[in-house]
């Protein structure tokens, strides 16, 4: 295997594994703010126990997110040195801003969130929870801005030629608010909220089914379901905005989403299908003719730019982009269905009456995770063969001094270590879930202890 394939595989594997965790902490962070806010507002101890339980889960997720996140920062330099030289002037400011504004905020206040229950007042603790949640979203801001710049470069000019060419910044705010950054950011954030919401829904539904911690879990379901209803609908909106943006800024990617080859024809919106890339047609598919044109232009007959308008060496692989995109959309619709059905049951006062619905909630934890992963696959593979859209090819972005054997070796190590890490994570998560929220006696004594600490300090 050559260096390019291996480097891409390694990056894909490490980023996919990493991306299990940040969406969970972003989504869970929002829920922690609501849970602890409810506790402070109502004084109900069950909200406190709920918050403490989920903080422990949060800490576990956060730790693995940090450990696998450093890898990502280092990999730009180790595997993509030419890319780093090319984009350093632009990408660098976003990354530095992420470190200074977001990471310090998250990791600093995380200490108080996890270890500070007995050390600060409830209000300061609540403030720390807000800061951790805010910090985790802020880090999404900067990393998505940087990634969006790769999709739709703006606010730059190219300096130097050939091997020495690189992008230099001309306008920071144009770079930050490049054409795709805001719609992609909102899409990523609501994907993360969904991951967190369905995680809490799943564990809480499990407790209700098992008849354990029932009162706490019912409250948690209501909090998480509210977020899920909002986020799943918002996701539809941001997804649509993104697709329209892509049709303007990255037409080759949009054409790959729907396997649309012929530029003179209106676009078909497929529900599913299998792309035969040689014959340039969709097999076994059901499509709605003209609907793609309608969604983008509001008119069924407007032609959509197709893949045939692009030279063959500027087209992304079509079938994988098509499949991942359609599966993401389908899951998104499914999440809306599950959330709205829950809202309906809640309205009728029967939210916890149907066991089968609780089972659906329990297993639905995987859906946002899958959608987040494959959504990124369609976004990133859809950008190929470019690493920076229209400017730098992925094949030209590699490290010149790293050979295939080195990457193969590190890739194998990553696979082994990450698999072990994942097994450990699931094992410890399972232990925490089995243990569940602490009993109320224990927490109240801890709370008294913290009050006492305060009065003596």
């Amino acid at each position, binding site marked *: 295997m050559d260096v390019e394939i291996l480097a891409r595989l390694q990056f894909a594997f490490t980023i996919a594994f990493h991306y299990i965790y940040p969406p969970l902490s972003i989504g869970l962070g929002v829920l922690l703010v609501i849970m602890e806010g409810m506790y402070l507002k109502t004084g109900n101890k069950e909200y406190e126990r709920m918050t403490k339980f989920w903080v422990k889960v949060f800490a576990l997720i956060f730790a693995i997110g940090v450990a696998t996140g450093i890898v990502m*920062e280092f990999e730009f330099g180790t595997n993509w040195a030419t890319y780093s030289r090319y984009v350093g002037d632009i990408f660098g400011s976003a990354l530095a801003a992420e*470190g200074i504004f977001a990471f310090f905020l998250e990791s600093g206040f995380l200490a*108080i969130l996890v*270890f500070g229950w007995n050390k600060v007042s409830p209000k300061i603790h609540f403030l720390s929870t807000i800061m951790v949640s805010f910090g985790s979203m802020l880090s999404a801001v900067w990393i998505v801005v940087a990634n969006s710049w790769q999709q739709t470069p703006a606010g730059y000019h190219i300096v130097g030629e050939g091997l020495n060419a690189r992008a230099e910044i001309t306008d920071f705010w144009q770079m930050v608010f490049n054409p795709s950054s805001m719609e992609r950011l909102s899409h990523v954030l609501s994907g993360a909220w969904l991951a967190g919401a369905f995680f809490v829904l799943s564990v809480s539904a499990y407790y209700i089914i098992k008849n354990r911690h029932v009162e706490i879990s019912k409250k948690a379901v209501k909090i998480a379901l509210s977020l899920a209803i909002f986020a799943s609908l918002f996701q539809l909106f941001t997804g649509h905005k993104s697709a329209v943006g892509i049709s303007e800024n990255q037409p080759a990617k949009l054409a790959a989403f729907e396997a649309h080859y012929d530029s003179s024809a209106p676009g078909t919106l497929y529900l599913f299908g299998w792309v035969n890339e040689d014959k340039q047609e969709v097999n076994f598919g059901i499509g709605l003719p003209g609907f793609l044109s309608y969604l983008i232009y509001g008119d069924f007959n407007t032609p959509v730019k197709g893949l045939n308008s692009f030279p063959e060496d500027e087209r992304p692989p079509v079938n994988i982009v098509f499949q991942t995109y359609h599966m993401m959309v389908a899951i998104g619709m499914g999440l809306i269905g599950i959330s709205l059905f829950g809202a309906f049951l809640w309205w009728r006062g029967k939210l916890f009456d149907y066991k089968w619905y609780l089972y659906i909630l329990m297993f639905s934890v995987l859906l946002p995770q899958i959608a987040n992963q494959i959504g990124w696959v369609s976004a990133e593979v859809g950008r190929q063969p470019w690493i920076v859209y229209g400017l730098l090819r992925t094949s030209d972005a590699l490290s*010149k*001094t790293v050979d295939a054997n080195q990457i193969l070796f590190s890739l194998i190590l990553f696979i082994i270590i990450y698999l072990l890490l994942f097994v450990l994570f699931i094992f410890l998560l399972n232990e925490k879930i089995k243990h569940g929220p*602490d009993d109320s006696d224990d927490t109240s004594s801890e709370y008294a202890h913290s009050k006492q600490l305060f009065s003596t300090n």
Partner: protein
Amino acid sequence: MEFTFDLNTIWFILIGVLLTGYAFLDGFDLGVGAIHLFIKGDNNRRISINAIGPVWDGNEVWLVTGGGALFAAFPHVYATVFSGFYNAFMLLIFMLIFRAVAIEFRSKQPMQWWRNMWDRAFSISSILIAFLMGVSIGNIITGVPIGPDKEFAGTFLGMLTPYTIMVGITTVALFMMHGSIYLTMKTEGDLHETIRTWVNNAIIFFVIMYTTTTMATLIYYPNMTKHFVENPGLFIIAILNMLAIANIPRVIQRRKDFFAFLSSGAVIASLLVLFAIGIFPNLVLSNPNPEYSLNIYNAASSQKTLQIMLTIAMIGVPFVLAYTVSIYWVFRGKVKIDSSSY
């Protein structure tokens, strides 16, 4: 090269500050890891891990931000060093992962074998991380082969010379001293008295390594002294460095552990300042072709980016300092194990 106080120089200093912050802060938790296996008894080891529990994560952010700032301000250095030292960086990454996981997972299960396993992972990874950092510094002093295309032209094993290994061991010793002093502030009773005796051993270990390495530097890498010869006033930093070292046993004797900690922090800071003055304005010295060295001008981002980042830093750093200080304040005092501990 003439010293001009421009944006490139400011960023040389700022990255130095970030890496010094990293060495000062993560230095003590790496040091705690390095001496962790000497601590006997499960409860004592829990105290050792919980002494750094709330803060190690934030300390590591200094490395992440330092790396990000290097990427942004001097992308060629970032690209050349990270790709050139691929194997070393992969090893560093794996050690950072092991270490984070070990701290997080160790106390989650009661089995003895489980805890022993993670204790070892925690300690060995801490030592190796410190060692690799030292070896990197050693390589920047000796210089590495760099081609006209700014690409690294050497080998992985070429990184390991007797000199760079010595700098690596010195770094481990320095962090052991720093970490053991930190633990004296966080422990009480018998454990505290035991660790107090280790501080003296760690100081001796460090001083021996430091003296030998300094002699080797002066003899074999006289280029490091160029600026000191030209500006004798700079020698005052070397004197301050020595005074800071000498101050540690003095205040430890008087049980002023916090001042000992500040002194060993001052040792770390002054050593890095001496190192930074020694290499200025180069970031990566090319050996044998010094004309290919990466310096703060030929490896830098545009003036515009350096300016933007300076604005970002001036807005962000006061916040960072404010909450770093408040968090250390919240978690001051001796370690008490409770239900939220590791």
